[in-house]
């Protein structure tokens, strides 16, 4: 192991971190909206809408992300005239937006199940109590159901965000030069696969470490009722006298 080389590699790979984070967070943000819609569709109680959401989750959770990226990027590339007529080609022309779309559709499917689990775990007595207090509709959802559901879903959702950070490495196959793409390019120039991939792995670890800490902080902030109450320090100095 050549540490000066690895340090140099680390510095070069860092230039790919903004794109990695950009892809991960943009798609998680769009994906969260999609997931919320899908979860509400699943729980709507209307058979047709439920079926649509179920089918969507089945397809996007059941196929590899790599295949989805290929289909969206190279597959839709074959239908350029149709897409141009629809005015969608400016979107699909760019590898960045194709990557965002694939990642969003994918995380939407996974996260919708996480959100559904959170919403369904809200204890019914609490909803009933809220109703008895005169809350209903959006107010009930905003004040009671949503805060409890978010607390329940957050640990699983944190995993999903971490999975998305790692999933961005697949964007390198459609020419996006994020951390993995840069690593592959550096290997082709130096042929030192082990050192470069070790450094790339360390970068992902650092990113995901930061993300897990942020999510833990969010969990702590959202669950004041689980924290230990501040206790008064017993006076032990007196014993030494």
């Amino acid at each position, binding site marked *: 192991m050549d540490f000066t080389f690895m340090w140099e590699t680390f510095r070069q790979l860092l230039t790919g971190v903004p794109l990695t984070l950009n892809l991960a967070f943009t798609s998680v943000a769009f994906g969260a909206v999609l997931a919320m819609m899908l979860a509400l569709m699943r729980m709507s109680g209307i058979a047709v809408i439920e079926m649509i959401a179920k089918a969507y989750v089945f397809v996007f959770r059941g196929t590899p992300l790599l295949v989805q990226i290929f289909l969206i990027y*190279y597959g839709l590339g074959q239908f350029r005239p149709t897409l141009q007529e629809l005015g969608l080609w400016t979107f699909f022309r760019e590898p960045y937006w194709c990557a965002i779309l694939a990642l969003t559709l994918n995380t939407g499917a996974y996260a919708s199940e996480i959100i559904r689990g959170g919403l369904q775990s809200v204890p019914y007595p609490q909803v009933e109590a809220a109703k008895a207090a005169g809350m209903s509709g959006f107010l009930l959802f905003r004040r009671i159901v949503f805060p409890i559901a978010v607390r329940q879903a957050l640990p699983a959702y944190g995993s999903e965000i971490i999975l998305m950070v790692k999933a961005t490495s697949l964007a390198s196959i459609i020419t996006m030069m994020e951390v993995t793409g840069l690593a592959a390019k550096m290997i082709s120039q130096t042929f030192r696969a082990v050192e470069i991939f070790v450094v790339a792995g360390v970068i992902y670890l650092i990113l995901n470490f930061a993300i897990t800490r942020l999510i833990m902080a969010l969990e702590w902030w959202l669950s004041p009722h689980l924290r230990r109450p501040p206790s008064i320090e017993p006076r032990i100095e007196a014993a030494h006298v």
Partner: protein
Amino acid sequence: MNLFKALTLALLGSTLAIGGASAQGKTVKIATEGAYAPWNFTGAGGKLEGFEIDLANDLCGRMKVQCEIVAQDWDGIIPALNAKKYDAIMAGMSITDDRKKVIDFAGPYANSPNGFLVAKNSPLAKMPGTGEAFNLGTQTAAAEKAIDAVKPLLKGKTIGVQGSTIHSNFADKYLKGTAEVREYKSTEAHDLDLSAGRIDAVLADATAIIGTLEKPEFKDYVLVGPSIVGGLLGSGVGVGMRKEDQELKKSFDTAIQAAIKDGTVKKLSLKWFQIDTTPLS
């Protein structure tokens, strides 16, 4: 403790014996990419075909060894050779100084220039220097002048190259800052994106471009630009092998020389490329 030692030694001995036997070159495992038509590609039946597959079989016959040809992704092809996953590479790999630092080459068995693949109706189709040939190694000034002449036309365009190739090195050195360069995993991938209109031109080996032009969906495309060889584009295509395998290198070199001399290389080259890519010796 003693038993353990004896066992370890016995195991070590047998491993060495097996390793030694394969180093004699009874079976030579050759890696190719399988996605670089017409050099090497996966045919309709799922079998590897192409110029290098035919040539490899011919060379193995001359060396009187059994050969096994395996497919390996391009961007890991050199690290996997040094990790002993196979013994040689025949994958349209140009002999360059950078690669020579980590592996050795037998040959060359082919030499072909690069070029741009563009749509016939694109402004790039009128690229200056088309039909002219330069050697970047020996006529550096003239070749660089020809490259500079092309630059104004490429300003603001997007060019696709295969990553980890002499073409991506060429693009990095001469075209970065002028055009946007996108790196693809295979030539098939950048061809698809050219036909989809995501990129304006492909920079690749002329033989690979000729192979692409044979496909019906590329009938409205054309090969343009100056033909450049040498310099950072390397000195022809050779068989890559580990530095310590000097025996294997020697037998490949002899076989390649024989195949060039009796016209086999020329015959195969005309069969697959329609042009003669036999290196000048």
